[in-house]
């Protein structure tokens, strides 16, 4: 393998992911669609069943034994997430349905915090879920939406960002890592600039959380959103981290924010963080088991993960470049283990369909980031996104499959 950093044994890790051990269309599965969703370790799968077999009951309600156990487990998971991202307080961790829900929570709350003529800045590298909520907000309030452009490498142009920031900027929202290109944005610097202009910052961390250590205090992010399903936890739960002072400022998300405002006495019943944003019975099991996924990540260590995935990225890039007419879309200097590419004028759909027949799971299309594809003037790409349970051997298999696809299609 030619590298020194391998403080974990990939084969041992793979054993913990039962789904990987199967054949697809007669071939051993190669799962390279990790940016869409991650696979789950046995610990997570077992914990879901364990929850229903032992402590299932509603949280924050009963005085009875089981309800107490479920509530404790749920709150314990919140604490694990807090420690994992180094939030100052446990109540700064809000359970949501996912990244999309987290962003919508903030966008809907900002209806009360901005006015006509104010400006919101997003980036041209965003997933639709970090575009549309802000567009809807701006349309409603008649605020202006400004967009930071990217260069040919798929990096945000910082000089353009500087120019967009002004005293009118109320909020800046961008992703920590782009799901379509893998670009790692200089979040800390960009946050500092936004703060200097007096704006709040929301970071879409959906792709960063599974791949790197994130410290929200060090970043100084005001909001940080991510999904459990992309970080080896169950589907259906996500996190909104918010600084206490911002969460206090935001009105409740569900249950009629405006009404609560006028009845000040009722407001106090909702006011306590984090419950103010958690109306209704939450996804208890997923929340609890997200805590198990966090333990799992901690055990392997995000530094180890990042180093190993960087190796996979370099190897994958190098092998792909062996093809004539290979175009790698997104060549940022700082890049996570995502490779978006095009092979000559072969259509991604054709290539993706053929390699699928050979057991290789790639993503094809615009990756819910149509403006990026428009920016590069392409209809979509093929995307391989690696996780720490992937191997270089799997990359070799992908290369062989791509060769076959190319042969069939040319």
């Amino acid at each position, binding site marked *: 393998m030619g590298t020194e950093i391998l403080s974990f044994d990939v084969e041992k890790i793979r054993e913990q992911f039962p789904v990987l051990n199967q054949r697809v*269309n007669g071939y051993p599965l190669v799962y390279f669609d990790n940016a869409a969703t991650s696979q789950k370790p046995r610990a997570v799968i077992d914990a879901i069943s364990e929850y229903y077999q032992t402590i299932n009951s509603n949280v924050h309600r009963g005085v009875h034994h089981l309800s107490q156990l479920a509530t404790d487990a749920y709150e314990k998971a919140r604490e694990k997430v807090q420690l994992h991202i180094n939030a100052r307080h446990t109540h700064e961790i809000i359970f949501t349905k996912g990244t999309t829900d987290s962003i919508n929570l903030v966008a809907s709350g900002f209806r009360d915090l901005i006015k006509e003529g104010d400006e919101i800045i997003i980036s041209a590298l965003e997933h639709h879920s970090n575009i549309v909520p802000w567009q809807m907000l701006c349309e409603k309030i008649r605020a202006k939406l400004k967009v930071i452009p990217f260069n040919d490498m798929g990096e945000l142009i910082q000089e353009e960002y500087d120019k967009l920031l002004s005293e009118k900027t109320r909020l800046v929202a961008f992703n920590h890592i782009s799901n379509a290109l893998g670009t790692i944005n200089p979040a800390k610097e960009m946050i500092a600039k936004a703060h200097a202009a007096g704006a709040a910052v929301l970071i879409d961390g959906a792709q960063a959380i599974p791949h790197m250590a994130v410290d929200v205090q060090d970043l100084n992010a005001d909001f940080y959103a991510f999904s459990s399903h992309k970080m080896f936890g169950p589907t259906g739960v996500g996190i909104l981290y918010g600084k206490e002072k911002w969460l206090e400022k935001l009105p409740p998300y569900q249950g009629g924010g405006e009404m609560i405002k006028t009845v000040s006495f009722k407001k106090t019943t909702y006011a306590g963080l984090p419950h103010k944003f958690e109306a209704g019975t939450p996804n208890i099991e997923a929340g609890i088991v997200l805590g198990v996924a966090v333990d799992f990540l901690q055990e392997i260590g995000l530094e180890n993960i990042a180093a190993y995935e960087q190796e996979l990225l370099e190897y994958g890039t190098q092998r792909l470049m062996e093809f004539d007419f290979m175009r790698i879309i997104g060549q940022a200097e700082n890049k996570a283990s995502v490779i978006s590419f095009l092979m000559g004028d072969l*259509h*991604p*759909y*054709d290539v993706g*369909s*053929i390699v699928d*027949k050979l057991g290789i799971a790639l993503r*094809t*299309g*615009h990756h819910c980031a149509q403006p990026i594809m428009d920016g590069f003037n392409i*209809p*979509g790409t093929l995307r391989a996104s690696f996780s720490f349970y992937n191997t270089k051997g799997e990359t070799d298999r992908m290369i062989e499959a791509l060769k076959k696809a190319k042969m*069939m*299609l040319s």
Partner: protein
Amino acid sequence: MSIDKIQEEIVEEFALFDDWMQKYEYLIELGKSLPLIDEQYKIDDNIIKGCQSRVWLHADIEGNKVVYTADSDAILTKGLIALMIRTLSDQKPDDIVNADMSFIDQIGLKEHLSPTRANGLLSMIKQMKFYALAMQAKDQF
């Protein structure tokens, strides 16, 4: 030839293939060999959007029959389009509207017609039937 008969023919042809690769190679051949649509009809108005591949569809009436031409930017999609045109084009509106397209399943290419595939094919079939319906309605006056 009736739609059913053509479909039977296609199913027989595909029965000769041993594996998916031969099927795909055949589709690719079909996709490559057919000039499916006149350039003048390859316009945005005729586009059926799937986020994976784009499909253009145009319908004409010739006598009491509907004649379809279509194209796609993905070659596998184009090959499948060729099969659909072979079955539905140059047929009477009534027959098109009532046509059962399950032969796609029988030849083992169902996955390309899955709604989640988002390649425009499913919408294409709907649109083909829709044109036929429109012509059927016109006939009644």
